[in-house]
């Protein structure tokens, strides 16, 4: 396992004047579970390809345990990879498929056996080790691909590129849990690329959120949810995403459209010192229907019943606000007063968090 360091790493594809990956430095600790999360075209695949060695960056360096591997090809980097679709040998048995990366490294047969059995146990494949891969479903094959990626202990890192795309939702629950347990037990360094936020958040200790070629935040799932550093993180993490509402701070009052609330003195001072336009950010989970107290009067537009939660959409001035309510909550009036949990309300200028 290795500590991975990106030093001033950036990439421009030949002939492009814009960066696909903005120059940046960061460290990924040994034995960590990292997820790279972002929409298509955000640069996450470019970054993964640089780490795996498929792409040589136009600037900066990649270090594995302090050793410069920037120009080394993938096969010289001692990494394992799992792709979106199964890559296995159809004519081999499940056992031989799992053993392949080990035998390839000339591991002795008794060790191969114990290692394969260990990983097969963890992925519930013990019963099918002697079957040929050919007759298996795409899903079963993908589980074997996962096993092949996880079977070697001596790799610097295991890279996953959208590995659960072909898996049914209910099986994803089991597999995620298994991968996580394997990580807890084997302490492999894992890097997991996905556009699925639930997958990234539940899998990783640290999530690296990318947007327009830039890492806009690296943090725990809790950090990303509770204190998004950038409006993009607020929007992208969570379903529905964070409410982002233009606002104005005027002395000790906070204005949203025509309505205002009192601001605590410290916050009023911070916000008063910012010349740029302000945006208020609050998660739908932290918008509450308030019977009394300070709240904003809003027009109720619709309520969607999603079985175990309800989503209320309301209008405040020209902006829409979403609130996540409980499965038995109802709002039957045409207007309702909404309150934002004060200590969980964020402020942004130019996309970046200021308070």
């Amino acid at each position, binding site marked *: 396992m290795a500590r991975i360091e990106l030093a001033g790493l950036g990439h421009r594809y030949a002939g492009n004047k814009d960066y696909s990956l903005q120059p940046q430095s960061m460290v990924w600790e040994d034995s960590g579970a990292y997820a790279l999360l972002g*929409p*298509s*075209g955000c640069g996450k695949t470019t970054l993964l390809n640089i780490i795996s060695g498929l792409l040589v960056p136009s600037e900066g360096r990649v270090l594995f345990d302090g050793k410069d591997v920037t120009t080394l090809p993938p096969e010289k980097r001692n990494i394992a990879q799992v792709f979106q679709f199964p890559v296995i040998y159809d004519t081999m048995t499940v056992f031989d498929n799992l053993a392949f990366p080990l035998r390839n490294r000339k591991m002795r047969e008794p060790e191969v056996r114990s290692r394969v059995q260990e990983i097969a146990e963890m992925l519930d494949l013990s019963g099918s080790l002697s079957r040929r891969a050919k007759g298996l*479903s795409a*899903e079963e094959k993908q589980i074997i691909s996962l096993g092949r990626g996880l079977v070697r202990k001596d790799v610097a890192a295991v890279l996953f590129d959208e590995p659960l795309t072909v898996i*049914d*939702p*209910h099986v994803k*629950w089991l597999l*995620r*849990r298994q991968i*996580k*347990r394997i990580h*807890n037990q084997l302490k492999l360094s894992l890097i997991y690329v996905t*556009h*699925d*936020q*639930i997958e990234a*958040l*539940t899998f990783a200790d640290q999530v690296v959120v990318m947007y327009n070629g830039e890492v806009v935040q690296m943090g*725990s*799932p*809790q950090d*990303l*949810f*509770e204190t998004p550093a950038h409006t993009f993180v607020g*929007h*992208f*993490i*969570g*379903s*529905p*995403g964070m409410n982002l509402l233009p606002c104005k701070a005027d002395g000790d009052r906070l204005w949203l459209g025509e309505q205002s609330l009192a601001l605590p003195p410290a916050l009023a001072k911070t916000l008063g010192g910012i010349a740029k336009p302000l945006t208020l950010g609050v*998660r739908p*989970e932290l918008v509450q229907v308030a019977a009394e107290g300070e709240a904003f009067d809003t*027009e*109720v*537009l*619709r*309520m*969607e*019943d*999603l*079985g*175990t939660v309800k989503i209320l959409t309301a209008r405040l001035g020209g902006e829409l606000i979403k609130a996540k309510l409980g*499965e038995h909550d109802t*709002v*039957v*009036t*045409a207007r309702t007063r909404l309150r934002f949990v004060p200590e969980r309300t964020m402020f942004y200028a130019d996309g970046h968090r200021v308070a």
Partner: protein
Amino acid sequence: MQLQLEGVTKQVGAETHIHKLDLVLQPGKINVLLGQTRAGKTTLMRLMAGLDRPTAGRVLVDGQDVTGVSVRRRNLAMVYQQFVNYPSFSVFENIASPLRLSGGLSEQEVKARVGAVAERLHITHLLDRLPGALSGGQQQRTAMARAMVKNAPLLLLDEPLVNLDYKLREELRAELKELFSTTATTVVYATTEPQEALLLGGHTVVLDEGRLLQFAPTLEVFHHPATRRVAQVFSDPPMNLLPATVRAGERALYLNEAVAIPLARHLAHLGAASYTVGVRPSHVRLARRKDSDIAIDCEVELSEISGSDTYLHVRFKTGKRKALDWVAQFSGVLNLAPDSHVTLYIDPSELFVFDEAGNLSGSPDRIVDLTAQPAAVTV
């Protein structure tokens, strides 16, 4: 338009892909086809479209038998998982192609129709571009515009958002729901995702291994799944299912032969027998809310923390039978160490119960206000 399948089956060689089924789609509404991969969703859509001919049974459109009438002579449109566009045609020409094919419209009318549908799908600014220059989301919007430009009375969408980013999917799904609510088109929408069915609303057909398991308003299927299998297919995170028995002369369910749960009002009719109890992950709680709540001792396997929610995987060890795996969903962050002990609470009035054959024996009372679907509160 009313589409009806009557005793339809589909055999391919010795394999049965669709078992005999009857289905009358809700005309002018969204009909979700929910099922896991290989449940038969695509096969069923192809039968509806006339792309394939059923082995037995009839397909009726507004009461008229159209079995065996080719797709070319039917008035319908289809959208696939893979965005299919003509690469050498501009977005405008792609969208216009079905109108040109059927002919009879002046250039001015074609322009007006393409313009209108492009506006509804927010791609007006892309009309001059080639599909190759578009993002995945824009390509799928183009494919949808082409399917919708004909105003066909039947629109079939086969997992149309599956290849798109999570956030894009969220956005497009909300737009589609809005679009469908304003047309008289009968929409069939296939998906593997329970959340997607709930977000779209309408009616839901649950398919599993080529069998139609249930067809009813979406929330009714969710709250009153006809069988254990329906509950499994239509829940994410999956519903916790546990063996239980009602003993002769007793008015309680014994979970795993150990924990006694007095029968709540909706289960009062249960006789002595073996059952499966279903508990939704969001109905498993960390603290007692009512005196009647039942405490269950568990061992933590793993906390999955998404930021907004914690999915706690636990092992339920009480009783003689083997340990059972559960998932509990809590809002917020709860980091419990693996192998630590935790007491969880369930409310007897929130239990689902299925009989030995897997049929629903009791589900929590629920007032499903159907008028409250898609645009709920009338202002």
